[in-house]
């Protein structure tokens, strides 16, 4: 373990949870809220070689009958997630802090959402007007770029890449704010006039950089009702399909497909719950398809269409 700093336990805020962690999380997430019980405890420790009574979902992940998960990545280490309340991290001998964090803030975060009964969508999310608008799509469809161009236009970021949704909230699905940073491709940063030289480079996708979102009002710390979902598709032609509403069945199928770490969650027995969750979203908010050319010179034009459709 080369550069891995170990903290005295420090409290952080993530999705409204109080997270107590021995591993430092982004400093902007320091807990400032009222005194309340700790929701999730992240500790260094020993993770067993295998879980008892478990299914091997992928070469990296095991899910036990209890819903506990064990993730192992050679370069980073082992992670054990229990009951959505406890994470034990056993870093690989020469793992760097960045490598350990990539999985902690990605897959581990997504699995904690599943264990806690949330629905995490593979989506980026911003506040437009008084509600949250999420952008789904396959990798490379421009979710983060879309969100970044809206943040530049004055809308606050809520989540990048993984959008945690509380489906059962009383007033309809609520989005819980995640981390104040975005991962963007170098050419997208260039189009947004953000210099990349000082930013931290992604460990896996080397042309991606982590952009902290620190400006006043640029990140939203409070939960917000979900108002709309856009499925992003890129087209080669210059044509722009301005956000047609999707039929019910397609919406539910699409939303189910866009659930973050869906196969892992299905192994936890969440299949019926996730299907009902996707239907609840489709029943509550419009799900639109937005097909556009990935032309970085036209980001503002597309952002204006989104604002128009949402009614901002």
């Amino acid at each position, binding site marked *: 373990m080369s550069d891995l700093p170990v903290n005295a336990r420090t409290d952080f805020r993530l999705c409204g949870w109080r997270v107590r962690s021995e591993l430092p999380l982004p400093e902007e997430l320091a807990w400032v809220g009222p005194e309340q019980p700790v929701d999730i405890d992240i500790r260094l420790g020993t993770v067993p070689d295998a879980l008892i009574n478990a299914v091997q979902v992928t070469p990296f992940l095991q899910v036990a009958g209890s819903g506990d998960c064990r993730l192992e990545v050679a370069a980073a280490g082992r992670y054990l997630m229990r009951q959505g309340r406890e994470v034990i991290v056993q870093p690989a001998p020469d793992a760097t802090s960045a490598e350990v964090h990539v999985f902690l803030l990605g897959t581990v975060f997504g699995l904690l959402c599943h264990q806690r009964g949330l629905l995490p969508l593979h989506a980026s999310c911003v506040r437009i007007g008084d509600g949250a608008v999420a952008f789904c799509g396959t990798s490379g469809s421009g979710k983060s770029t879309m969100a970044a161009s809206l943040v530049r236009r004055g809308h606050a970021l809520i989540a990048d890449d993984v959008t945690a949704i509380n489906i059962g909230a009383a007033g309809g699905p609520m989005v819980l704010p995640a981390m104040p940073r975005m991962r963007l491709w170098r050419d997208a940063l260039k189009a947004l006039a953000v210099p990349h030289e000082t930013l931290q480079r992604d460990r896996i996708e080397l042309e991606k950089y982590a952009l902290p979102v620190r400006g006043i009002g640029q990140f939203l710390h409070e939960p917000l009702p979900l108002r709309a979902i856009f499925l992003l598709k890129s087209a080669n032609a210059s044509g722009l399909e301005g956000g047609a509403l999707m039929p019910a*069945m397609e919406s539910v*199928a699409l939303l189910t497909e866009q659930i973050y770490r869906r196969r892992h969650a299905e192994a936890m027995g969440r299949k019926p719950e996730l*299907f009902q969750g996707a*239907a609840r979203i489709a029943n509550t908010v419009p799900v639109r398809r937005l097909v556009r050319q990935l032309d970085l010179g036209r980001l503002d034009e597309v952002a204006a269409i989104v604002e128009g459709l949402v009614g901002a």
Partner: protein
Amino acid sequence: MNKKDELSAALTVVDYVVRSEQCLSTEVGDETVLMSVENGCYGGLDDIGSDIWRRLEKPVSVAELCDELVAEYAADRAIIEADVLAYLRSLLQQQMIKIVSR
């Protein structure tokens, strides 16, 4: 013909049918959306399809189901029976419903 096709072709008005536990269903707007747990396939039902689906929560005979629909929609029995059999056969083929003994 494979086994599934034989089974669905053999469906008659005296058979009892019920939703399969392999099928998840939910209502979105006026439509019913079905999903097969086994293969992840989706299906959508229109308003009349959804109405029939609601009546398949507990085992029901095809004849009884047709009686209810003739009363509800005031349509010709022969037409209803043919349509319902065709509809149920397609649901059977996709394993969204199953035939049960009564």
